[in-house]
C-alpha cells in the first residue's frame, strides 16, 4: 500500500508539472496576460499605409506597452487603413486631442507596432474617437525610390 501511495503521488506531481508547464507557456512564452479584468477603451486611427501591422500588435507610449491593435480594416471611403486600438482605460481622458500615432518597427526585421506620443492640446480623446495625426509605416521600397529619385536630380 505504501508503494501505491508513492506512485499516486508521483502521478499527481507529473500532472501538476504538466499543468504548470501549460501555464508557463501561456504566460511567459505566448505573453498572454489576464486582461479579463483589465478595462480597455478604443480609439481609431487612419493610416495611409500600415506596412506589416497585424492585429494583436503592441501599442506603446514612451516604449511602455499600453494596449493592443484590435482590428485592421480598409476604410472604403478614403481607401486607407482604419486601425482600431484597445488602450488601457487608465489612459482614458488623459491623451490630448493632438496625440500622434506612428507605425514603428522594433529592430531591422522585427515586429511592427504603434507608438503614441502626446501633444499639448488641453482637450482629450474620448472612447471611440479618431486620432487624426498619424504617421505611416516605413516601406523600404518607397524609401529606396525616393533615394534614387533624389540621386537622379543631383
Amino acid at each position, binding site marked *: 500500500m505504501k508503494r501505491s501511495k508513492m506512485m499516486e503521488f508521483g502521478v499527481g506531481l507529473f500532472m501538476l508539472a504538466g499543468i504548470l508547464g501549460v501555464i*508557463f507557456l501561456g504566460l511567459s512564452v505566448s505573453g498572454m496576460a489576464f486582461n479579463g479584468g483589465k478595462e480597455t477603451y478604443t480609439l481609431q486611427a487612419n493610416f495611409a499605409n500600415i506596412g506589416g501591422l497585424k492585429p494583436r500588435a503592441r501599442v506603446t507610449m514612451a516604449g511602455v506597452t499600453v494596449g493592443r491593435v484590435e482590428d485592421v480594416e480598409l476604410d472604403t471611403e478614403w481607401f486607407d487603413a482604419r486601425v482600431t486600438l484597445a488602450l488601457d482605460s487608465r489612459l482614458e481622458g488623459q491623451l490630448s486631442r493632438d496625440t500622434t500615432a506612428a507605425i514603428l518597427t522594433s529592430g*531591422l526585421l522585427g515586429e511592427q507596432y504603434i507608438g503614441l506620443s502626446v501633444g499639448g492640446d488641453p482637450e482629450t480623446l474620448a472612447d471611440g474617437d479618431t486620432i487624426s495625426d498619424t504617421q505611416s509605416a516605413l516601406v523600404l521600397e518607397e524609401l529606396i525610390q525616393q533615394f534614387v529619385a533624389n540621386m537622379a536630380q543631383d
Partner: protein
Amino acid sequence: MITRITRLGRRGCDLVEALGRAGMFLGQSLVGRPSGEGVKLWLRQMHFIGVLSLAIILVSGLFIGMVLALQGYTILVDFGAEDALGQMVSLSLLRELAPVVAALLFAGRAGSALTAEIGLMKATEQLSSMEMIGVDPLKRVVAPRLWAGFVSLPLLTVGFSVIGIWGGHLVGVEWLGVYEGSYWGNMQASVDFVDDIGNGMLKSLVFALVVTWIAVFQGYDLVPTSEGISRATTRTVVYSSLAVLGLDFVLTALMFGEMG
C-alpha cells in the same frame, strides 16, 4: 498471374480486416463507465507510461532546445537578427519538434513496452484466463493503458517544450550573449496561445491516440509466440513512427498551411 492477383486480393482483405478489428478494439475498450478499480489501474499505467518516460523526454528536450539555439544563432547572426532567436526556438519547438519528437520517443520508450507486455500476457494465456473468469481484458488490461497514453503524451510534450525553451535560453542568452529581453520579448510577441501552443497540443493529442492505439493493438493482436512478440514490438515502433511523421505533415498543412 491469377495466383498473384489472388494474393493481392487476400492482402487487401487482410488489411481491411485488421483495420476493422483495430477500430472495434478501440471502440470496445474506450466505451464504458470508469470504475474505482479502473482509476487505480489507470494510475498505475500513468506511473509507468508517463512518469517513467519523463527522464528521457526532458533530457532530449533540453538538448534539442540547446542545439536549436546554437544552430539558429549561427544562421541568424549573419543577418544581424540574433534577437529573433527566442522566436525561432519557441515556434519550432511548440509547433513541430516537441509534439513529433516526444511522440517518437514515446513510441520507442512506452509503446514498445506496452506491446511486449500485452503480447506476453496473451502468449502466457493470461488474457484468455481473464475472459474465463468473466473479466473483460479490454476493460481490465487495455482501457487503462489507452487512457494513460492519451493523458501522458500531451503532458510530456508540454515538458519537452518548456525545457527546450529553457535550454535555448541557456545557450542563447547565457552562453552566446543574446540580450535576455529580446529573447523573451520577441518570443512573446510572436507566439500565440491558441494558434501555436493550442495547435501543438492538438497535434500531440492526435499522436498520443495513434501511438497508444497502435502499441496496444499490436500487443493484443499478435501471434502468441516469442517470435510474434518480437515482430509485433518492431511493428509498433515502425508503424507508430511512420504514422506520426505522416500525420504531422497532414496536420501541419491543415493548421499552418493555407488550406486551414
